[in-house]
């Protein structure tokens, strides 16, 4: 490993040949000032701040781009180094406005810190300073480009990490400006990281602007719950309100990046529709009341309406914490019902857990081939997509089988367009091709299948890959044939020796599966509960318009006179007021302790960052008290850690897709797939106003091919289920791909 010895500031250090000096100094805790160097980005060496003295070299050398060699003697703090660093600092400050008192970066600014150390208190420069007019780059990032020192970290971030080159340095010499080509706003789903990498106040958070000074805030380590990754974050709060979320380093999970959804969703916490007081509906009128009354009303209502325990159903969104899932299923089971589910948006449900992933986040980086099935990965799971992108930079190839050609931030090879109803046939064809090529006997249900050319090519790539993965995405959820498809994916993976990355479920779904928040064979699943037989419901963080696959029948059921609905919810909206009979205000993200289980199966716990507003209470406490009021046994918890310990002892039931019956499936109908933009996936994000104003947040189009549009009798800019139609040729036939921020209507 360490093959050379060098000396930094008199300290003998072992290092690898070719390591940069700054890298070694960082490891040894020797401070070298820098602006353009960033450990996750390429070396630009354009700020010159990290100049150090290397003995024997006449001029000071940039530590970031000078590789260490055996016997090198480096001084980072002698007169020569200091003189060089101070000179650079003086140049950098010539055009910097020094408006720190009104700059949001003040207090956490690398330029400010380094200027304290290396800057002069008097400037020799009397000429006018450069001013750069701001063009604006969207709703998330505030630009003050006069403050820019041209380190190009944001430019390199776009090119190297986000994969969308948006920022660039135009002009030359003193006239250089860092700006995007378009002023319509940044397109990337990871754009907020530019704020983190910017060493000065040129790029700051727009929603956070002038909200608080950085040193006034209270930072708490937390975990983002919006996707399967569980990115590590700090929440920063001021006077009891979360004011900002920034990334926390964790190399095996999110490296140093977080998605815009994780970063800006906190805004939703302070939305005006927060549920702040317990409420009950008496004779159709809502009344605010206290907790005692509301709980009594809720318990009595459930007991009176559910004549037998099987008439009680419990539903949750996929974003609750492990502890909440555990307690709520325990409450339901002790109550005597198996009608438990979190898979509200799935079209076809079984009693089995979802297909198990067989790869970890960091392993994805080293794959050599990926086949993506039914997924707009970039928007669904930004950080997982980022890992796939890193693999492609190392030479991995990617093929897709999707219903529309999506905009990935890496090159895809073969793109097979398949509508959801034809997906089974396509996968069968690929599976058959693999069997043909590997000279294995194909199972009998494939006897009639003869693979097309492109399916043979897909199969070739799968077989040839040594370290391939098949990625199964969110689109599966609304596929009426999902069980057969999952089975085929599993068979393809085993026939071609592939790893599986199942990203169909998001949020904290893996916690829900771990504690069995789903019915066994006696119970009803979310898809079958809305019939005559369920008379009382307990909902946790459920949005009646957005969350259900068939929201109309769900709402119709809840709205019935003789159906009693208790809602634990952080927010109120009209549909909830219509459907519910009791609203128990629940703490939201960052307001309660809990645990998230991520793609790697890692359980990450977090504590509450702020107190929940109004009278709202943490979900796990509400459930515990309800269980006590039901006089159920086994709910003597003092804190959520005890709940967590019990929950973690459970293990998800096995997923089994081995003996799926491939009976006939009707694939003749035109189908519609409804995909949400990433910024309406959960109740908090949906209310985060800045995210909604981004290019991604405003996506609202029903994509359809020309032939299908003709069949449906729709044209460009017509409304299809309330969504503007866009006729394109990159979408499968007999199929409408609705990509929207509107609530599901199909």
């Amino acid at each position, binding site marked *: 490993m360490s093959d050379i010895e060098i000396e930094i500031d008199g300290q003998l250090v072992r290092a690898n040949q070719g390591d940069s000096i700054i890298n070694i100094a960082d490891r040894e805790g020797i401070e070298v000032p820098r602006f353009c160097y960033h450990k996750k980005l390429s070396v630009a060496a354009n700020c010159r701040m990290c100049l150090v003295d290397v003995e024997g070299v006449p001029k000071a050398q940039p530590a970031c781009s000078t590789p260490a060699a055996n016997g090198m003697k480096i001084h980072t703090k002698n007169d020569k180094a200091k003189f060089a660093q101070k000179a650079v600092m003086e140049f950098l400050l010539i055009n910097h406005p020094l408006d720190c008192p009104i700059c949001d970066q003040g207090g956490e600014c690398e330029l400010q810190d380094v200027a304290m150390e290396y800057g002069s208190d008097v400037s020799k420069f009397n000429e006018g300073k450069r001013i750069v007019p701001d063009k604006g780059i969207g709703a998330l990032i505030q630009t003050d480009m006069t403050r820019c020192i041209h380190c190009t970290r944001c430019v390199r971030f776009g090119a190297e990490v986000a994969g969308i*080159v*948006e920022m*660039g340095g*135009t002009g030359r010499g003193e006239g250089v400006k860092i700006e*995007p*080509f378009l002023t319509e706003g940044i397109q990337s789903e990871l754009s907020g990281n530019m704020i983190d990498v910017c060493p000065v106040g040129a790029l700051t958070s727009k929603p956070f602007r002038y909200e608080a000074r950085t040193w006034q805030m209270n930072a708490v380590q937390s975990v983002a719950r919006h996707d399967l990754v569980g990115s590590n974050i700090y929440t920063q709060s001021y006077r009891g309100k979360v004011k900002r979320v920034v990334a926390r380093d964790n190399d095996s999970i999110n490296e140093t990046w977080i998605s815009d959804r994780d970063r800006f969703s906190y805004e939703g916490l302070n939305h005006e529709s927060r549920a702040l007081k317990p409420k009950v509906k008496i004779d159709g009128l809502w009344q605010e009341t206290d907790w005692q009354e509301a709980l009594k009303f809720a318990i009595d209502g459930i007991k009176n309406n559910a004549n037998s325990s099987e008439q009680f159903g419990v539903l949750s969104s996929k974003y609750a914490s492990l502890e909440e899932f555990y307690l709520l299923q325990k409450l339901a089971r002790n109550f005597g019902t198996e009608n438990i589910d979190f898979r509200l948006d799935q079209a076809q449900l079984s009693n089995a857990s979802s297909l198990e992933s067989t790869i970890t986040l960091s392993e994805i980086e080293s794959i050599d081939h990926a086949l993506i099935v039914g997924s707009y990965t970039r928007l669904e799971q930004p950080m997982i997509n980022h890992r796939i992108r890193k693999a492609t930079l190392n030479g991995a190839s990617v093929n897709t089988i999707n219903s529309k050609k999506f905009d990935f931030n890496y090159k895809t090879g073969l793109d097979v367009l398949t509508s959801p109803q034809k997906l089974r046939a396509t996968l069968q064809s690929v599976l058959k091709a693999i069997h043909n090529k590997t000279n294995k006997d194909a199972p009998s249900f494939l006897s009639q299948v003869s693979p097309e050319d492109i399916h043979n090519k897909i199969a070739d790539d799968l077989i040839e890959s040594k370290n391939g993965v098949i990625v199964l995405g969110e689109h599966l959820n609304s596929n009426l044939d999902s069980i057969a498809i999952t089975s085929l994916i599993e068979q393809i993976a085993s026939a071609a020796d592939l790893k599986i990355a199942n990203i169909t479920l998001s949020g904290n779904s893996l916690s829900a599966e771990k504690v069995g928040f789903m019915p066994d064979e006696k119970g009803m699943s979310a898809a079958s509960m809305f019939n005559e037989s369920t008379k009382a419901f307990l909902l946790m963080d459920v949005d009646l318009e957005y969350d259900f696959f068939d929201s109309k029948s769900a709402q119709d059921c809840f709205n019935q006179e003789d159906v009693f609905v208790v809602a634990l919810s952080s927010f109120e909206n009209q549909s909830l007021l219509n459907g519910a009979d009791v609203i128990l205000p629940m703490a939201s993200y960052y307001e309660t302790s809990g645990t998230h289980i991520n793609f790697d199966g890692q359980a990450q716990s977090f504590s509450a960052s702020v107190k929940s507003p109004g009278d709202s209470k943490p979900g796990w406490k509400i459930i515990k008290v309800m269980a006590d009021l039901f006089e159920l046994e086994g709910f003597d918890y003092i804190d959520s850690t005890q709940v967590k310990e019990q929950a973690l002892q459970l293990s998800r039931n096995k997923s089994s897709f081995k003996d799926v019956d491939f009976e006939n499936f009707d694939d003749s109908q035109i189908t519609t797939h409804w995909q949400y933009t990433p910024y309406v996936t959960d109740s908090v994000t949906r209310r985060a106003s800045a995210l909604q104003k981004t290019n991604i947040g405003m996506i609202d189009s029903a994509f359809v091919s020309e032939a299908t549009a003709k069949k449906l009798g729709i044209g460009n800019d017509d409304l299809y289920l309330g969504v503007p139609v866009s006729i394109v040729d990159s979408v499968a036939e007999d199929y409408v791909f609705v990509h929207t921020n509107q609530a599901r209507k199909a």
Partner: protein
Amino acid sequence: MISNEAKKEIDFWVSKYPEGRESSAVMQALTIVQKENGGSLNSELINDVAEYLEMPAISVQEVATFYENYNHKPVGKHVLRFCHNISCMLNGSDELISYLEDKLGVKTGEVSKDGLVSVKKVECLGACVGGPMCQIGDQYHEHLTKDKLDNILENLT
């Protein structure tokens, strides 16, 4: 839009670079497109070049704003590219530029009313021995004086 002729010319330059390095031809492409557009570029054309060479638009913009030989505002039929670097400056280029501005009634970077001439200050053109100098089209004009300039302007049509 890039015309088919222009595309053919660009393809010639693209063919000089290895496959996958099409973006190396960006400077020639911009020159060709600029010439076709009467001597200047606009963001639409920059976007077109980016699409044609499969580059991010901002990368093309970076090149187009870095080099002096691309104009981002409409120019006159003839562009007087006046050197204002050290040798020319010491030999009185500033004076000649002011003289030109007064005579034409326009500032550097603007187009004369008849659309015939615009003046642009550029960096060293490598003809220091003949300073002060300017470039018009492909022609260098050296050892300039006010009289010589008058003469040159009279002959521009």
